[in-house]
């Protein structure tokens, strides 16, 4: 499963995945064994879903296309069709798309290999507009909308709760507040994303998020971002010594 997870990130889309499968199976692009390739493709989609990866609609659409082609190839031909069978290989359109996609994929590689300005070659400075905007000194307050988006992003990456899970751990917002403060201690700032370990459970994510909101409410933490839609950073808002004196009892926060 892990091997799948790593590999899946390398595919730009269904066409890319199909190209890979056809190459891996060492079959002719002009004579794709539909049953074999479709089965492998579906197995990978399955694995993606098991891993709770967000399977993009395009992958599902392609799965449907593959099944459609496979079924069309199983159907006996009418006399009419036999006469025009040359034009009628159900796979023709797919093959054409794959070759077309490969063409641009290769072109992209070639273009990228050219010496690039500001990567391989440098000219006398004319500051890029986005570079000046991103200057780190210009931190702005995080809007509610950006915050919700950031949470949605973290939640999107966190696995759905498993239905039969029994050992529910009681998570305390208070405890988490202390943990976040500890992490911030002695640091100038902390990235919002770093608060959430990869693949943290949803309940974990929510408790951490609530803890962070409480810290903001208690004015212990300020949330800033260095540009609109930029990444969000936590800044300690008061001296760390004072932090311990703040009453963060569960009752006072309204979490029981």
């Amino acid at each position: 499963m892990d091997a799948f997870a790593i590999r899946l990130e390398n595919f730009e889309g269904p066409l890319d995945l199909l190209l890979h499968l056809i190459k891996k199976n060492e079959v002719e692009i002009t004579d794709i064994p539909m049953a074999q390739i479709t089965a492998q493709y579906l197995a990978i989609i399955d694995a993606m879903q098991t891993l709770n990866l967000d399977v993009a609609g395009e992958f599902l659409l392609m799965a449907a296309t593959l099944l459609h082609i496979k079924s069309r190839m199983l159907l006996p031909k009418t006399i009419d069709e036999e006469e025009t069978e040359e034009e009628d290989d159900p796979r023709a359109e797919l093959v054409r798309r794959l070759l077309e996609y490969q063409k641009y994929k290769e072109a992209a590689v070639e273009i990228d290999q050219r010496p690039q300005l500001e990567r391989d070659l440098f000219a006398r400075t004319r500051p890029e507009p986005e570079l000046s905007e991103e200057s780190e000194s210009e931190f702005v307050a995080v809007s509610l909308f950006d915050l919700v988006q950031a949470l949605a992003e973290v939640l999107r990456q966190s696995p759905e709760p498993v239905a039969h899970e029994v050992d529910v751990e009681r998570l305390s917002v208070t405890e988490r507040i202390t943990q976040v403060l500890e992490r911030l201690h002695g640091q100038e700032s902390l990235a919002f994303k770093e608060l959430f370990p990869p693949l943290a459970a949803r309940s974990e994510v929510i408790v951490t998020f609530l803890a962070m909101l409480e810290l903001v409410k208690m004015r212990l933490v300020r949330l800033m971002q260095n540009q609109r839609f930029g990444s969000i950073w936590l800044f300690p808002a008061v001296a760390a010594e004072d932090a311990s004196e703040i009453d963060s009892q569960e009752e006072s926060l309204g979490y029981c």
Partner: protein
Amino acid sequence: MDTADLKPLVEALIFAADGPVRLERLVEVIGLETEPVAVALAELERDYAAQRRGFFLQQVAGGYQLRTRPEYADDLRRFGRGRPFKLTRPALESLAIIAYRQPVTRAEVEYLRGVDSGSVIKTLLEKQLVRILGKKDVPGKPMIYGTTRQFLELFGLTDLSALPTLREFNELLPEQTLATEGIDVESPLLVEEDAVDLSAVPGEERHDEQS
């Protein structure tokens, strides 16, 4: 003014410019005929190529610009130069499709890539590598996209005809390598013909399943 005097003047102008300078602009500023200025430019270009300097004169986006040699890229990056963004594979793929097929709609890019490309195109627009050329005169009036001067500058291209030749494939390439055979000359500017009708299947790729 003879070429000996003209060359340092042209060099000075190109040095002081904040982007590629076109020949016409040089001619306009210097106030001479095109011919001697072009000669001075060509000589300058040769001089830079012949002498081992840290930079050279590159023809880019229809103009001329002094740029550092690629072999010093690592040192210059350590020097704090270098752009903060890297073009991702989706961005490069979309950019390639737009570059070769412009004017092209988002739907065409998405059909070719098989993936939703809205956000990638938005990023390319933000990076000013792609621009909106107008609207296509079909139902829905979709936007049509093309590449910008910044795109040419970024990749050191004089114009779109300097793009690497698109290769037509009849078979798959081994993964992660580039094939050198099967080169089909296809001008990037001529590719756009009938770009919408992508469903037409070219005959040579049809296959007889009974065989």
